[in-house]
């Protein structure tokens, strides 16, 4: 830090932070899909975890865009004892 720098306004980090936030918000959409499956997976996991305790490894989210239409396959395994107390129907819920 030179003597002259001392008198100038310091701290360019906030500018860097703001520029990055704006840029990345834009890039994540335009360069998309910052993998929709991964985003859905994280959000589903958070939602389910509010009600029942599950092993994160037992949640699988697959997005298939190869056919004439896209399919989203969600496979969750919920421990059976929690299912009973939580009143959730079916140990394995599958949606397509």
């Amino acid at each position, binding site marked *: 830090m030179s003597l002259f720098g001392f008198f100038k306004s310091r701290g*360019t*980090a906030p500018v860097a932070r703001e520029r990055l936030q704006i840029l990345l918000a834009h890039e*994540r959409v335009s360069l998309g899909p910052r*993998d929709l*499956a991964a985003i859905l997976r994280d959000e589903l996991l958070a939602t389910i975890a509010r009600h029942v305790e599950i092993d994160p490894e037992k949640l*699988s*989210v697959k997005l298939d865009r190869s056919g004439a239409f896209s399919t989203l396959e969600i496979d969750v395994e919920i421990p059976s004892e929690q299912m009973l107390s939580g009143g959730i129907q079916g140990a394995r819920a599958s949606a397509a």
Partner: protein
Amino acid sequence: MSKVIVVTSGKGGVGKTTSTASIGAALAQMGHRVCVVDFDVGLRNLDLVMGAERRVVYDLINVAQGDAKLAQALIRDKRIDTLHLLAASQTRDKDALTDEGVERVIGELRERFDYVLCDSPAGIERGALLAMRFADEAVVVTNPEVSSVRDSDRIIGLLDSRTRRAESGARMDKQLLLTRFDSGRSSRGEMLSVADVLDILSIPLLGIIPESEDILRASNLGAPVTMSGVLSPAGRAYSDAARRLAGETLPMVVAEEKKTLLTRLFGRRAA
């Protein structure tokens, strides 16, 4: 249980190779069987940073193409017996690596080692994609600097979409290793803070490695910073990161490079 971890960043020069070598050596010192694999075909450097550049006979491509057995290509570290290196090829065409070849080599490495650390090349091309393809988790190496953070964001997107794990619908764990961090400059607002980078990239923090002269000294000598008897602040930070990677919970300490009066008076040294 074997773990395959890709060390990646998008941007070049942020410390992927140094981090791979330092964390690999630290994990091996803890008694784990470790193999560090250089995926930077054509620009190999992990052998040099590990001090094994004169011992490379066969490399990743030889093994992936079936020209050499894995056992022939593995280089055992002379200082730590549980540490091995699989070098990249210096001369061959980078298109020589195929998905199938790499998958087979990774499968064989899983049988022999507790940790397989894949040192990714820079960029988002084929080499970087192959390095992450068969990994179980990722270490994203980032400098507190705008271009590095932006590139890390791209890499995180690729980790979530182009890896085998992501494609099978499983979660790809990613942790941030913030390197070349200068706590003084950050606290004066001249450098992005740890919180800034974490907030922007939103992945968990594995470690903070201080900008340090010891890193250059270590690569000059071909001896990763975690190998010396008395650990420098950078060596300690890498060693802590390795322990966290192995599942330990440790407090996050931001190490500071000690400055002499002279360097304080005459400003920063050349990096």
